[in-house]
């Protein structure tokens, strides 16, 4: 069955232009379509919450399979909504505490799996001979050695920058920390360039929608 419909495309196109008008000036047309967008997104959240999770994982097991303890999950969910009251809003901290507790409990395994391989990956030999080269890396042993030395130096300098519990009066430490901050600029330069690329891709998708789907050009 078809996913789109001409009337829908027209509304979408007019909405796109209305929302683009924000770049010129905030105006009533922009606000109208922004409110429509917020409403549609909230409406979809209700559908997804029921269809995807509550019906299959809570309502059916409780009502059809007879697992009555799921009623306590409803009580836990209800406690979140006490946040809107003055007298009972402390109770919302119980359910929030449960979710925070679960997340905190997972931190041990998550930290281990996320950072131990990166520590292991930082064990780079500072002097590489022919045998240790990765196949097809196209690097000479000297090249790989220099890369490894630079890699370890950057880790040490950037980590030194983020030490706070002792004064950085010693010249060497100060120099290392300042180098660390400059090394960070490479990472932030890469992020800057990629962010611009990401935003452009979003604009191109919209312009192509207006040109191709709506006006039939190109």
């Amino acid at each position, binding site marked *: 069955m078809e996913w789109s419909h001409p009337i829908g495309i027209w509304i979408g196109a007019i909405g796109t232009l209305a929302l683009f008008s*924000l770049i010129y000036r*905030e105006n009533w047309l922009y606000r109208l379509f*922004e409110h429509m967008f*917020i409403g549609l997104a909230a409406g979809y959240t209700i559908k997804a919450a029921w269809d995807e999770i509550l019906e299959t994982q809570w309502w059916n097991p409780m009502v059809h399979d007879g697992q009555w303890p799921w009623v306590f999950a409803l009580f836990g969910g209800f406690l979140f909504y006490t946040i809107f009251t003055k007298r009972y809003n402390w109770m919302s901290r119980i359910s929030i505490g449960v979710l925070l507790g679960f997340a905190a409990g997972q931190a*041990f*395994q998550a*930290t*281990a*799996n996320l*950072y*131990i*391989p990166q*520590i*292991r990956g*930082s*064990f*780079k*030999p*500072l*002097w590489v001979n022919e045998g240790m080269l990765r196949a097809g890396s196209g690097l000479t042993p000297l090249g790989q050695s220099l890369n490894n030395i630079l890699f*370890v130096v950057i*880790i*040490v300098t950037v*980590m030194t920058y*983020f*030490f*706070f*519990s*002792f*004064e*950085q009066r010693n010249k060497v430490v100060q120099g290392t920390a300042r180098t660390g*901050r400059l090394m*960070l*600029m490479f990472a*932030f*330069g890469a*992020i*800057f360039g990629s*962010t611009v690329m990401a*935003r452009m891709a979003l604009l191109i998708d919209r312009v192509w929608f207006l040109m191709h789907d709506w006006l039939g050009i190109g």
Partner: protein
Amino acid sequence: MTHASDRWESAMLIALLSVIVLVTIITAQRGRKYFIRRIPGLNAIDEAVGRATEMGRPLLMVPGLSALGVVGLQALTIFSYIIKTAAKFGNRLIMPCADSALYTVAEEVVRDSYAAAGKPEEYDPNSVYFLSDRQFAFASGVAGTIFREKVAASFLFGDFYAESLIFAEAGQQVGAIQVAGTVSTTQLPFFIASCDYTIIGDEYYAASAYISREPTLLGSLVGQDYCKLLFLLVILLGVLAVSIPKLHMDWFVQWFTLG
């Protein structure tokens, strides 16, 4: 690693990190004094406040889109430091908020800061206000204020997202002195390129710990420092082990080889 028993040594390193942080937090709460160095970002704030007060125009403080949480509350801690520094010069303060819960706490913090600086009468209730919780409505609203008020200094601390560049651009346009600080790594490039000084990553937590002298924050930060030292030591030992095979330290490398 599904369970600690898959590689005990690695799991013990994580357990050791937790013990270190817990010990430093609990001892700090029990009154032990811990030292945190003054990060350069705070000097940049003092300098910005000094130059701004000469211009006599208002000071802008934006807690970004932060909700009522660890990052948002620490932004207010930094703002209270700035208010105490600037209160004696009498510059007008503007603090638009994007989260209604954080707004209520911000009002209290600002009033207490003026009182703490001995200038309760300087506190203007309209200076702290809830603007909008929609990302772009908030950003364009704040940009409008920057251009209208020609703010002298702009302090941007907290959680920032794609709209960060709109604040930075507006401040740059009116020639405001800008100091920013956030843990959102993806927004740091824009602050670094357009602000006079930017506080990066962990420095954000260090700034608020230094200002608030809160035992839990100080203890936690010092504990985290020891953990970072431990990581650095493990890495350097590992580099040594793989660089000089004659040392026969393969057992050490195996400790951290998972799967």
